[in-house]
C-alpha cells in the first residue's frame, strides 16, 4: 500500500508499454513540454478529477492506436505525444474541460473569447487528422 500518490502513480505504470521513460531512477524528459504534461496529469489525478488508472487505460489505447495505424500515415513514435493524446481523452471523458476547450488545446490556443496572450495558436502539423492537431 502506498501513502504517496506520486509513488502509486509511477508504480502503476511500470512494467508495461505505457511506462514513462526513465533513466537511473529518474524520470527522463527530453523537453520541457514533456515534463509539463506529465506534471499536469499527476496533478489532476491527485486532485481527483479522474482516476490515474483511467489515464493509464487511455494511454494504453493511444499506444495501441499508434501501433495498429498504417505506417505511412502515422507520425514517428513519441511517448509523450501519445501521453498528451491520452491525457486530453481522459480530460474530455471526465469533463474537466468542455469539448470546445479540448478542441482549442489541440490547435494550441484557447477558446475564442477568452483573454489570452497566446491566441495566435500554431499551424496544425500535416498527416493524420487525429495526430495533426486539426480537429
Amino acid at each position, binding site marked *: *500500500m*502506498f*501513502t*504517496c500518490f*506520486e*509513488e502509486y502513480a*509511477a*508504480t502503476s505504470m*511500470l*512494467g508495461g508499454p505505457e*511506462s514513462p521513460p*526513465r533513466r*537511473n*531512477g*529518474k*524520470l527522463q524528459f527530453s*523537453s*520541457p*513540454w514533456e*515534463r*509539463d*504534461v*506529465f*506534471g*499536469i496529469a*499527476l*496533478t*489532476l489525478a*491527485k*486532485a481527483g*478529477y479522474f482516476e490515474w488508472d483511467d489515464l493509464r487505460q487511455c494511454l494504453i489505447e493511444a499506444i495501441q492506436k499508434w501501433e495498429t495505424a498504417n*505506417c505511412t500515415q502515422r*507520425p*514517428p513514435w*513519441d511517448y*509523450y*505525444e501519445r501521453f*498528451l493524446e491520452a*491525457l*486530453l481523452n481522459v*480530460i474530455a471523458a471526465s469533463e*474537466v*474541460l468542455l469539448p470546445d476547450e479540448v478542441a*482549442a*488545446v489541440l*490547435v*494550441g*490556443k*484557447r*477558446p475564442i473569447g*477568452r483573454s*489570452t496572450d*497566446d491566441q495566435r*495558436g*500554431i*499551424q*496544425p*502539423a*500535416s498527416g493524420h487528422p487525429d495526430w495533426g*492537431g486539426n480537429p
Partner: protein
Amino acid sequence: MIDDMFRYPDDREAVNAAKVRALEALLIEKGVIGSDTVDTVLQYFESVAGPWNGGKIVARAWLDPGFKKRLIDDTPKAIAELAMPLGMAGAEGEHMAAVANENGVHNLIVCTMCSCYPFPVLGLPPYWYKDPVFRARGVREPRAVLREFGVELPAETEIKVWESSAQIRWFVIPERPANTGNLSEGELATLVTPEAMMGIALVAAPSKP
C-alpha cells in the same frame, strides 16, 4: 523508407509544446490547477525521493563504520540522522531495510509479488524490475541473472536474495570501490547507482580524467 519512419517533423516539438502550453494555461484560468502546480508535484521525483538519497546514505556508510552498523540494525533510525528530505518519511521510508555486500557475500533485491521498491532511496525502478521472468529467475538462479547483468562473482561468493514486500523494502550497501580514498563524501555519493543498490551491479571506481 526506414529513415522516413524515424524522421521527426521540424515543427513537431513546437506543436506539442503549444498544445501543452494552451492546456496548462486553460486549466490555470479555470482554477483547476495553480500556476506552480506542475513544479510542486514533480518536486517529489526531482528533489525529494530519488537515487541521490541512496548515494548519500551509502557514502556515509562507507566512511563511517558506526553509521553502517546502525544502518543495518535499524535503517529508518540511522537515515533519520542524516536530515534527509521529507520523502524519506511515511510508509515508504519507514519500511526500508539495508543489507551490506562484503567480501564473500553479495546481496540481490527482488520483489516476486508486485513491485515493492524503496523509492525514497532508489527512485523509479527500471522496466525489467516488474518483469515476471526477472523476478522468478532472480530467486531461482541469481548467479546466472547477475552474470547477464555483467556481474561475474567468484564461485565461493554467497549470493543472498532478499524479497521486498509491503512490510520491508530492501536496499543494498554495495562495496566501496578500490582507489577512492581521496574522494570526498559527496564525490563518493555520485558513484553509487540505483543498480548497485539493487545488487545487480557493482560500484565502479571513477575513470581517471
